[in-house]
């Protein structure tokens, strides 16, 4: 019971953090491209790298959730 709750909480809190971070990063990137369309390619590559780093933290939460789900009978 506790493990199932923990799994849910782990993945949801990780999701909230990652969601906020990705929203800010993506929004700023679109703003930058809208102002200076000629740097679009560079911004896109950097955005992908940044999103990957943010996503890793969310995936850590997901990983913990999977580990906890493995404990649920």
């Amino acid at each position, binding site marked *: 019971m506790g493990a199932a709750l923990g799994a849910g909480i782990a993945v949801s809190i990780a999701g909230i953090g990652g969601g906020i971070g990705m929203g800010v990063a993506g929004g700023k990137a679109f703003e930058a491209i809208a102002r200076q369309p000629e740097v679009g390619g560079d911004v896109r*590559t950097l955005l992908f790298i940044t999103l990957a780093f943010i*996503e890793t933290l969310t995936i850590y939460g997901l990983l913990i959730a999977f580990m906890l789900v493995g404990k649920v009978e």
Partner: protein
Amino acid sequence: MIFGMHDGVLFHLGPIPVDHLVVTQWVIIALLGTVAFFATRNMQEIPRGLQNAFEMIITWANEFFTQLMDKPHVAKKWAPLLTTFFLFILVSNYSGLLPGSATIDGFQPPTSNWNVTMTLALITFFSIYVAGISENGLHHFKHFVSPSPAMLPLNLVEEVAHPLSLTVRLFGNIFGEEMVIAYLLFMAPFVVPAAIMGLSLLLGAIQAIVFTILSASYIAAATGEGH
């Protein structure tokens, strides 16, 4: 049964157990190899068909990595490895979406197991050293004590965190996506999973690109002047 791992040792090759993941990877390698073989056999001055497509991929990859790594000779040296990473991970990710693949007992995309993704990440890990030492000689190891020796512990942690995060990112994404599709198939067998499968076409490609870009930027960082 941790992480939905299917213990599928199919046969032994001498003392080495060969499981379903290894066989799937062999199939993927054979597939890529065969397509590449037929594309480059009987090459023409004016490319047509498959050869044209492959030349497009190679040209695009070379340009992309040159722009990303800003040292052209380094990019030229490492582009083949990185492009292979991309193609292999892309085909691995998509292998789970093939119609009928779920009916094969114990089938899973190779990248949804972290033994496979860690192998890929370790190739990157050692490539960073090879690239750094071949470019800067033993000065490469200076980056452990830059900007000051007090940063040594943090730099060591970072050194381990790079391959670890590459491993967990690819494995977590693909495995999570597979689990979501499996649960959806269990709850609503028709139509509904198709939406998520469409999304995972996009996700699979993005993860392949991300792994490649991050490997490229780690290698570029190791070969840069800063170290």
